[in-house]
């Protein structure tokens, strides 16, 4: 069933449209930065954007910082919201269940397909933004596409090319985990409603609320438990030494959200009448 879900994911044109849009954003930003060479003032704008001007090979990290807070969660919410509700409104859900595909199995397959999508989208963004960064800002003086000799980290120490790749992989892993809570919220709502749009909307409402509360000092008491609080903690992978505290907390919160919401989705889906 997991294989079928992944096949369905990659046979839908929208998967490529969404990935293409995700790749386009960093590209557009890069075009502006490269032509004007005006760096964002320190402390403002996306992380890494000023560092990128001097070394293009850091651009994949900057691209992550660009797509992470809004664009990526929106696309995950849309796909996850549609995952069960879309099958229901298409009329295929009942046929999958009487095929028979177990309800638990179906939910797990849907979640795995979402993780595959996040990996695919991030991979596409990393690749295109690496090429963009190298060609527009220059990183390696000699061979062009080859991994640059060393990169200046945010804290001013140099990272070896191997270290950069490892940190990027760690970043990918952390972002996938961060997206799990979005996926779980939307998946849960998707088992409640038959409207994929409604489920996506609900999940986005939760995220936007969380983002607003994160910046609100009056809500400081609940801040550490908000799903989006530690979303940008992966930036700490690019410090030397790596700052683990927020990364660990962030991952922990995401896993708690995942377990609770997936459990709720499962409990709801197992006992639901499929009558559409």
């Amino acid at each position, binding site marked *: 069933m997991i294989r079928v879900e992944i*096949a*369905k994911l990659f046979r839908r044109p929208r998967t490529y449209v969404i990935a293409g849009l995700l790749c386009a954003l960093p590209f557009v930003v890069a075009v502006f930065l490269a032509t004007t060479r005006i760096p964002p003032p320190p402390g403002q704008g996306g992380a890494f954007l000023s560092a990128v001007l001097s070394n293009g090979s850091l651009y994949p990290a900057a691209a992550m910082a660009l797509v992470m807070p809004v664009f990526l969660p929106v696309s995950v919410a849309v796909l996850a919201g549609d995952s069960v509700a879309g099958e229901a409104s298409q*009329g*295929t859900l*009942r*046929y999958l269940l*009487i095929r*028979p595909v177990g309800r638990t199995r179906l939910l797990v397959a849907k979640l795995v397909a979402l993780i595959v999508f996040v990996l695919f989208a991030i991979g596409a963004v990393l690749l295109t933004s690496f090429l963009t960064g190298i060609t527009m800002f220059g990183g390696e003086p000699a061979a062009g596409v080859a991994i640059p000799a060393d990169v200046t980290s945010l804290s001013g120490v140099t990272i070896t090319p191997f270290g950069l790749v490892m940190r990027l992989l760690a970043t990918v892993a952390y972002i996938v985990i961060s997206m799990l809570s979005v996926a779980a919220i939307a998946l849960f709502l998707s088992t409640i409603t038959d409207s994929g749009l409604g489920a996506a909307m609900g999940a986005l409402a939760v995220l936007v609320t969380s983002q607003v509360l994160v910046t609100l000092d009056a809500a400081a008491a609940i801040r550490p438990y908000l799903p989006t609080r530690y979303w940008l903690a992966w930036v700490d992978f690019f410090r030397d030494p790596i700052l683990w505290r927020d990364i660990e907390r962030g991952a922990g919160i995401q896993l708690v959200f995942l377990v609770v919401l997936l459990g709720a989705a499962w409990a709801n889906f197992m006992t639901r*009448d499929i009558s559409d």
Partner: protein
Amino acid sequence: MITTRGLVKTYGKVTAVDDVDLDVREGDRYGLLGPNGSGKTTLVRMLLGLVFATRGEIEVLGFKVPRRVREALPRIGAMVEGPGLYAHLNGRANLTLMDAAGPGGSRSDRKRRVGEALERVGLAGIDRRPVKAYSLGMRQRLGLAAALLRQPRLLVLDEPTNGLDPRGIREIRDLLAELNAEGTTVFLSSHLLGEIDALCSRVGVMDRGRLVLQDELSALRAPTGRVLVGTPEPDRVVALLNGRVEKRDGSRLTVRHADPGDLNTELVQAGIRVTSIGAERRTLEQVVLEATTTSSDRVS
């Protein structure tokens, strides 16, 4: 094959299915009739484990539903309320995905199975167009092909001829009769009397959630003990039979008599010309109309 006992499904205050004791036997061509909204679809969904019963028991192919429905489902082919298809994929891809989604059946066999199912429903020549370009009838056939993929022992079909033209309906009916002759039990639900009348051997009638009638079609349509006589001399017949004529409609008479043959002899011996004669049978329509109340989508 299918038995239910005291099956009830309520949605809030509305009782969709009310105390139904369904009995479908092996080899049946069972037709479930009933007006729109009489609970047919809810009943079918409960049989397949999609909707959970409020009360009562269900057993399909010897397995309790919903607890062991996953053991029964691989041997059931079903179509519930229209086909469910991925509109952006072509017909073959749809069937291949459906086949791959569930258990059983080897992968090397898949292409052949899909091809056979398509051929059975008359779609052997479909091209690579996506399903969204299909006509309603083609989609219906594709849905039926999906139900036939795994050579089911039991076919559960809800309104299978929706959107088909008369020739298509005939083809599907012949296909179902053929499958039944090969040993597949067919359980069909429809609000179309003609469809059930032409295909089924046993009939159940639903009305407002209740199964008000369940019997062999031949028993339901047994002779009524009256004979229909067509004659150019109705007055003479009335005079001769003296009170046994129950209804007179121009040259057509309804006579209370057990045997058309005896009556014919009697009339001919009296020198009365007879143009047609035959035992009166109730039509399925009469049976259903007597068993049901009003159309449930009528609001008055």
